């Protein structure tokens, strides 16, 4: 319950109306999940990650993150790229994280 409230607040803070079902999404919970939520969920729900799994290797996940930064204008600091790509590859990718 606490997590649901947390994510609702996060979306509220960003001013993005979340579809009702979105708050029920459960992603792999580790220490990097909060960072992934912070950097990736401004523009899209995190089922995009689940949907694109598990077939992307690390380089392909990194290419997706870089595309979000360079093409879609996501303000992701360079220092955050490695932990985000680690998380995506470990839980939603193939091959070595």
């Amino acid at each position, binding site marked *: 319950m606490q997590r649901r409230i947390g994510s609702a607040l996060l979306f509220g803070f960003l001013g993005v109306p979340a579809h009702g079902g979105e708050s029920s999404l459960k992603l792999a919970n580790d220490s990097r999940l909060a960072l992934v939520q912070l950097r990736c969920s401004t523009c899209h729900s995190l*089922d995009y990650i689940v949907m*694109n799994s598990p077939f992307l290797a690390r380089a392909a996940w990194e290419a997706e993150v870089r595309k979000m930064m360079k093409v879609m204008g996501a*303000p992701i600091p360079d220092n955050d790229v490695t932990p985000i790509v680690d998380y995506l590859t470990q839980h939603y990718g193939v091959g070595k994280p």
Partner: protein
Amino acid sequence: MESAVRDTLPGKQPLIKRSFRPPNYESPLEVFDDVITPNDRFFVRWHLSNIPRIDADSWRLNIGGDAAERGFELTLDELKRDFEPVELVAVCQCAGNRRGLSEPHVPGVQWGYGAMGNARWKGVRLKDILARASLKKEVVEIAFNGSDRAPLEATPAFAKSIPAWKAMDENTLVAYEMNGAPLPHWNGFPARIVVPGWTATYWMKQVVGIRALSQPLASFWMNTAYRIPKGKFPVIDRFTSQESETTTPITEILVNSLMTHVGAGRQFAANQPVTIKGVAWDGGYGIRGVEVSVDEGRSWQSAELGENYGKYSFRTWQFTCAPRVAGRMSVMARASNVQGTSQPSELIFNGPGYHNNVVQKIAIDIV
């Protein structure tokens, strides 16, 4: 696919949810048992997640651009009143329909078979609107803007263009009705562009701007996205002003078919009639025939075509056989159009996963 759950958007029946935000929802297979796709079961596809609720009274369609002699604005009432209404049935199919079936997998919305629908569109001819704007002879493309926005200013706005010749086609519409009702919010209320025969990326929803351009539109959504390798697909319509050395914007829908009535692993009794049903469609040349094979593609027999709703519509078909031998039986269907083009037996692989029209193969059990 783990993300494929049924979910209900306001005003829609449950659809297969691919992503909540932006909303990307496809129609379940059984929807295509009917030749016309109902509005509340029609697929939903958006790139950007801020999708405003549009008030019909305050909506305006702005027409202009550097290749128009004069710009003007239309209210919804003026759009309906000032131009001749036209109706046609046409397939709206996402360029990436069936991307999720690509082997190897490619990233993107992992669509199954249902990122498409067939509706009766009512609207006015784009060429009639453009006539009022008096196009200059320099015009090369007509560009469209919608109302959706990304949460971030830095994200490229969703803008698309079509060649001027396609915009002047009498079947290219600004549509305000779908199957006799106003467009659903999720499908572009109050008006969207309808480009029969071409993939849905050009069918701008919630359209608010139409611009006649003397130069090719520079937009991420034209120059980078929605492009296919040149020469790899049997397409006829070219979009020369946007072509590069190696790639070209996706244009017309490839000939395709879908078996709607049998699912993998379904059981049928031996020596009883088994009816295979489906729909076939193409980029507006017209379906010539559909053939079915029940012997791994060694022999093909003609299916019976249903009523013709026009060259841009789904064409229903059915085929009945009575298998005598119990066991696994594979069923394949293959459509061809009046150009003589047919579906490939091997996927024409491309990185973005567009134009997947490989022949479907479904294994059923005869018991």
